[in-house]
């Protein structure tokens, strides 16, 4: 039941003692993965065996991975360790984050679209907009994620330098959360992702940890530079932008409040809103290994040490931007909730029924009926996926009425018996 209560979009029901998912309401945030005590909810990541079909594998770690080890472990060493544990190559994505930041700035400076623009890089946030805020789809900035940009670049380089075919190369993203893993399987806007599989940071963490001592004593590498290193924490994206009037938001509850305001026509003077479904942004993803606040501290230190020098030539990136290098093809479609009824009059009638039923419920959101709140229960009854009797309070009341009626009948019957048999002592 924990998963049902923790789900921010009320997408889980417990029926016949099993949790079921209303897919059109799920935003892939991963809260249920963390909440489940029975490990019944598993993230859809890949296993090493899935990659045997590729001749050449490239690991692209989310820059969150750079914050999972001690403060003396530089990002280059982590990239080197990934090569020691079985990947043919590894490729940094923090530098791509810097490029994407430059592209965002260009977009803000040149495109006159409804403000504020919303960052589309947290897949759970994108789905939240698709499901609950279709009005705000046009606010999502149509720029490709650093993960996709890095994957495309890594593939292009491997094809050019090693003479490989695209189908020979497997790009594996080391992910901090299940939302990214699902976004790769099912990208919201286009048919194909440049990433071929995902592995959870928490799964690969022990292997990297084991390989690190050898790397640190036997190798040297070039530092990863730039403000892109700060992307995994709240405010990391905005820190890369020149634009003033930007917001950074972490946590679904806060995201919802900001989206309500934008929908009400407020915040028009804000240029850009960076939004993360996790309160501490990606370092707080459910598939990470390190405490989110410790990881955050390490990211801040890294930005302090290496952020000052850019890793990209700004002019080159601006030119690539003009050639649509960063553009996301296609539009993000809304994911409408199934209406109560396809006929508006009937739907209004059902809404009335729902409200009346809701008024008769205890409103304590106990969840014993298998729906997360009394309101969702009323909706489920109107939609015919639950029975009023599933509410234990209603069932008890019904039982009381039933037993009172029964008692009355029994009494009436015994009276008749007495009348017929005057000798009875009753």
């Amino acid at each position: 039941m924990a998963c049902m209560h923790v789900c921010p979009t009320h997408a889980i029901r417990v029926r016949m003692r099993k949790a079921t998912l209303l897919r059109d309401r799920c935003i892939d945030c991963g809260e249920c993965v963390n909440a489940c005590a029975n490990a019944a909810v598993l993230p859809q990541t890949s296993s090493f065996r899935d990659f045997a079909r590729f001749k050449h594998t490239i690991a692209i770690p989310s820059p969150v991975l750079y914050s999972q080890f001690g403060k003396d472990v530089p990002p280059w060493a982590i990239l080197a360790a990934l090569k020691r544990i079985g990947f043919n190559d590894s490729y940094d994505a923090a530098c791509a984050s810097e490029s994407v930041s430059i592209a965002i700035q260009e977009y803000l400076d040149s495109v006159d679209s409804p403000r504020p623009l919303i960052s589309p890089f947290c897949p759970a946030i994108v789905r939240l907009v698709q499901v609950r805020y279709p009005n705000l789809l046009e606010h999502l900035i149509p720029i490709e994620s650093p993960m996709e940009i890095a994957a495309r670049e890594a593939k292009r380089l491997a094809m050019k330098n090693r003479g490989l075919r695209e189908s020979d190369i497997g790009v594996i993203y080391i992910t901090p959360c299940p939302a990214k893993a699902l976004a790769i399987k099912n990208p919201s806007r286009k048919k194909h992702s440049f990433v071929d599989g995902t592995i959870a940071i928490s799964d690969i963490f022990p292997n990297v940890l084991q390989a690190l001592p050898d790397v640190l004593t036997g190798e040297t590498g070039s530092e990863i530079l730039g403000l892109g290193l700060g992307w995994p924490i709240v405010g990391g994206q905005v820190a890369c932008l020149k634009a003033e009037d930007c917001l950074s938001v972490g946590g679904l509850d806060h995201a919802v409040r900001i989206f309500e305001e934008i929908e009400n026509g407020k915040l028009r003077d804000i240029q850009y809103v960076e939004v993360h479904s996790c309160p501490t942004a990606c370092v707080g993803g459910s598939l990470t290994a390190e405490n989110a606040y410790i990881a955050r501290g390490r990211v801040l230190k890294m930005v302090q040490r290496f952020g000052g020098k850019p890793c990209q030539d700004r002019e080159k990136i601006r030119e690539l931007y003009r050639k649509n290098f960063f553009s996301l093809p296609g539009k993000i479609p809304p994911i409408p909730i199934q209406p109560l009824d396809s006929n508006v009059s009937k739907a209004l009638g059902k809404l009335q029924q729902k409200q009346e039923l809701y008024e008769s419920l205890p409103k304590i959101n106990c969840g014993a009926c298998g729906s997360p709140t009394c309101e969702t229960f009323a909706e489920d009854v109107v939609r015919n996926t639950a029975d009023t009797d599933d509410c234990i309070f209603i069932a008890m009341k019904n039982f009381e009425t039933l037993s009172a009626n029964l008692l009355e009948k029994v009494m009436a019957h015994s009276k008749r018996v007495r009348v017929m048999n005057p000798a009875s002592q009753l």
Partner: protein
Amino acid sequence: MSASFSRSFTIEGRDFLNAGRASTQIKTILKELSVDPAIIRRVAIASYEAEMNVVMYATRAKLKFTMSASAINLEIDDEGPGIPDITLAMQEGYSTATSQMRELGFGAGMGLPNMKKNSDEFVIESAVSKGTRLTMTIYIN
């Protein structure tokens, strides 16, 4: 008679903490009914601006939301100071907001004009030191 659904909300003046709650609930209802997002947006802006006006200027108000198959109706009836000059109040940029309200990001003088812009029918009646009554209708088709 065709089916309709209605719901009433009470809005308290000065209650900035709960300001916007009625319009949020109205939006939730409209989304549940799969109303066109463009219409939801107009209803959202109209109801939110009306709600904010009550919170900022009036003592309290009743907001009644009614929806039928063809239209959405918003009725906001407040107890408050009333508006002495409605023509002036309807002008874009005219506001009687205090500097404190302006610091909170309100008082741009766009409330009433925005409500009118976003509704198909807009009726405003007001009596000084009694209150103001707004009726807004947004057609669905």
